[in-house]
């Protein structure tokens, strides 16, 4: 247990970092509360209702589609003898590595009027003009929902599958003995018990959807995120952008509350996994349908986009492109490394504080430092600007007053703001992973070293950190990958002429020439695969 001076300084730093991570949000909300009502009335009379409607429709559609993709896939993998189940089990997670905006671009290329699919159809059936046939238009809100759901459904799949696998086998047995068939048992027992996990995963999916910027921007669907971006960069109207960001935050807050409530319902899990011989045996026809369903998800969410990217990379590979790629790649890796390292260190400090400190409020720093995960990158960027902009001005004023050279925008105009934003946004991932790791360490191990005359700090280095090694690595990796992929916050916060892989790809997509960035896109996908592979291997080795 913590005692003495270290106790106070640890406590001070824990609270300091936790509050620092919270501060931009507080500043932004404060700013929007003080926004003039005229501005809000104007926004409400003009564009806001449409933005809100689009945002809501998109959120609901994506949640619905993710449910339809993720829950049956989870049931098939965890409860049936589907062919190649072992492979599909991890293949179905791969779409998570694919940024939605990439899929959006690639599929638009594939399916629009001038794309290969429609050209082929026209050639086959001898159609002359668009009037001769119907073909779906992917650049709509529905298209955006499908594309986003194709890369986000793995959240639903993973959490629901875990819930199914952790259900007490005896509950299903009991329901069978009480007269339910396999199907009835599934609907009356397994599915209701998985409801909290499904709700949590749908909340995550909806949050990610509301935070999406590039996909909707590319499809020209106006949502609250694109509105924030346009209002700030297009019209330089900071107050209006801030106000819209606050509206978006309200939606997010609603989902967070729903998610927390769902989590509270996540009780009663046991470790009696379904053994091989109790899986439902699918008939031949069922096998075919189930396989088509799962492979369709893997193919359209991951394999096809990767193939398209590889084809592009091969067709357009050139030396200059590679040099540019290395430069932007370095930038990406730099900010991702900074963010991952800082977030992991803070998470370690706060999680150990929560575990070892005696004070009653020891849980709070860890909790509040994780709030940022719900905040869309666009909103977060606004919050950074709202906080660090005035702070920079103040610093310059002070410098001038003392006759020093003005340092310029050292906070809001450097990668400091980006890294800070990433740490705020991804701290929850690191916190969750490390806290789960600490939870695995028996409490007696906190006390045993004390009884052997070893001090707390030494205990942490000799007991906790070695036992947390893999959790620390996973936390670092997860934050690193998220930071590599994150786009909207970087777009708004990057210093002049500073490009990362994601901003470069976004730029190329906006200019309809992704071909030149295909290699970079593949790189992002490859990085995204790292934690999936790592986590999967870790699970297998257990």
């Amino acid at each position: 247990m913590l005692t003495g001076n270290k106790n106070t300084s640890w406590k001070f730093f824990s609270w300091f970092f936790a509050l620092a991570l919270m501060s931009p949000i507080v500043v932004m909300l404060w700013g929007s509360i003080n926004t003039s009502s005229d501005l809000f009335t104007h926004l409400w009379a003009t564009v806001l209702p449409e933005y809100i409607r689009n945002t809501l429709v998109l959120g609901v559609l994506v949640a619905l589609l993710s449910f339809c993709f993720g829950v049956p896939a989870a049931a098939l993998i965890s409860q049936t003898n589907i062919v190649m189940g072992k492979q599909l089990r991890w293949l179905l997670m791969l779409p998570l590595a694919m940024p939605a905006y990439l899929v959006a671009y690639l599929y638009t290329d594939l399916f629009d009027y001038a794309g290969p699919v429609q050209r082929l159809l026209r050639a086959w059936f001898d159609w002359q003009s668009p009037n001769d046939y119907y073909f779906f238009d992917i650049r709509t809100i529905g298209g955006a929902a499908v594309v986003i759901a194709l890369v986000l459904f793995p959240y639903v799949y993973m959490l629901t599958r875990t819930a199914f696998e952790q259900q007490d086998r005896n509950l299903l047995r009991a329901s069978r003995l009480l007269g339910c068939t396999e199907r009835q048992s599934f609907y009356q027992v397994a599915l209701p018990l998985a409801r909290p996990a499904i709700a949590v995963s749908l909340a995550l999916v909806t949050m990610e959807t509301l935070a999406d910027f590039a996909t909707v921007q590319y499809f020209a669907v106006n949502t609250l995120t694109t509105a924030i971006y346009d209002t700030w960069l297009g019209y330089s109207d900071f107050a209006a952008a801030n106000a819209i960001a606050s509206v978006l935050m309200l939606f997010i807050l609603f989902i967070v509350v729903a998610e927390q409530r769902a989590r509270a319902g996540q009780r009663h899990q046991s470790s009696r996994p379904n053994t091989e011989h109790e899986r439902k045996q699918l008939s031949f026809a069922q096998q075919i349908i189930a396989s088509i369903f799962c492979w369709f998800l893997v193919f359209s969410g991951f394999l096809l986009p990767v193939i398209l990217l590889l084809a592009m990379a091969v067709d357009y590979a050139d030396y200059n492109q590679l040099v540019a790629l290395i430069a932007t790649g370095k930038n990406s890796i730099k900010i991702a490394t900074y963010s991952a390292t800082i977030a992991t260190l803070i998470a370690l400090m706060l999680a150990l504080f929560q575990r070892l400190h005696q004070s009653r409020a020891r849980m709070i720093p860890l909790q509040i430092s994780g709030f940022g995960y719900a905040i869309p990158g666009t909103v977060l960027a606004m919050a950074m600007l709202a906080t660090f902009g005035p702070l920079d001005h103040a610093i310059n004023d002070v410098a001038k007053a003392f006759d020093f050279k003005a340092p310029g925008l050292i906070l809001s105009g450097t990668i400091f703001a980006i890294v800070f934003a990433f740490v705020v946004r991804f701290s929850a991932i690191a916190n969750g992973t490390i806290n789960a790791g600490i939870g695995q360490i028996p409490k007696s191990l906190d006390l045993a070293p004390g009884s052997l005359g070893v001090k707390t700090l030494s205990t942490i280095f000799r007991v906790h950190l070695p036992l947390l090694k893999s959790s620390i690595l996973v936390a670092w990796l997860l934050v690193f990958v998220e930071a590599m992929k994150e786009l909207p916050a970087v777009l708004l916060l990057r210093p002049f002429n500073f490009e990362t892989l994601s901003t470069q790809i976004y730029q190329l997509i906006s200019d309809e020439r992704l071909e030149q960035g295909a290699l970079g896109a593949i790189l992002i996908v490859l990085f995204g695969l790292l934690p999936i592979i790592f986590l999967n291997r870790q699970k297998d080795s257990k």
Partner: protein
Amino acid sequence: MKPLINIENLAVELQSKVILSQVDLSLQKGEIIGLVGPSGCGKTTLLNTLAGFIAQSAGTIEINTSENQQIKISIANMLPAEERNIGMIFQDYALFPHLSVNENICFGLKKLTKAEQGKRCEELLALLELAEFGQRYPHQLSGGQQQRVAIARALAPQPSLLLLDEPFSNIDARLRNELMIEIRQLLKRLGMTAIFVTHNKDEVFTFADKIAVMHQGKVLQIGAPAQVCQHPNSWQVADFLQLGSWLPVVLKAYKNDLPISSLIGQLANCALVNTLVDKSSNTTLNYQLLVKPNDIELCQQQPDNVIVEHIGVTEQGYHYLLSSIEQHTALAFSHLSFYSQELYVLGDKLAIRLKGERFNLYAVHKHH
């Protein structure tokens, strides 16, 4: 009278490993049988096979649900669990956490009307003294209450056979005996036939009419508890039921009147109850004699032959574990149980001898 359940030659193989083989068992209506045996002996597998969770690889299970109704389960006719009319109480109770007590109890009553369901549920709640808990959820109940809900739920569809998988293992030791008696009386009152699994032999003696001892996938012995205790038919049965300690002996020649010798005395051939000894053999063989604590007495006249290794205090006086002073022989032993009102000290040397007249002798399978 036709037995309620008749199991013949039942075998189960999982992943080409034999889990159960040649299991024969039959139960009359209203009988309670306890399956005991060491972990991994196949008792839970037998329960799961009867319930329909595991497919048998040979043999038949016949259940006579009523006078002229019979369910026959064989490889050719694998009935799914929901059509077997068997109830089960799980070790962890397996109550549905998302349903209230009432909903849990009515879960298997879907074929009845709402009114009938309500009536049956009310009866069971009253029977199990749960009347005030109907609206609660499982996590709001104590362990004992949860178990009663599990019993009510299993009884609700009026199964012809009830299976209980270690039902008392989660109950506080102090309450266990009381609860066992209570539930036994309830099952007897309802005329319910039940098979229950435990690894605790004391539970069987309190709860069951019959005991079946299992070992390595086979049923070694079935019978009334008293009969099995008096005449264990194999070494494993006696060992599992802890009927005494094991004393290594040597059989000399059969013509001799005192053919059985040990480090604590000799026995006449006629003192043996069982006839496991292979009389055709003339060679000297190692056997173990089952020795109950009161088969031993102190004998001051002879030289010391044992040493006190452990002392415990029990209601029957001091309990000593003795080992032979002589350790470098095939007849050496340790952990021989002996009770006395006299207090000795660890390391004390004593002289003891066999005094009983009825012994069970078994061929050596395991070293103690």
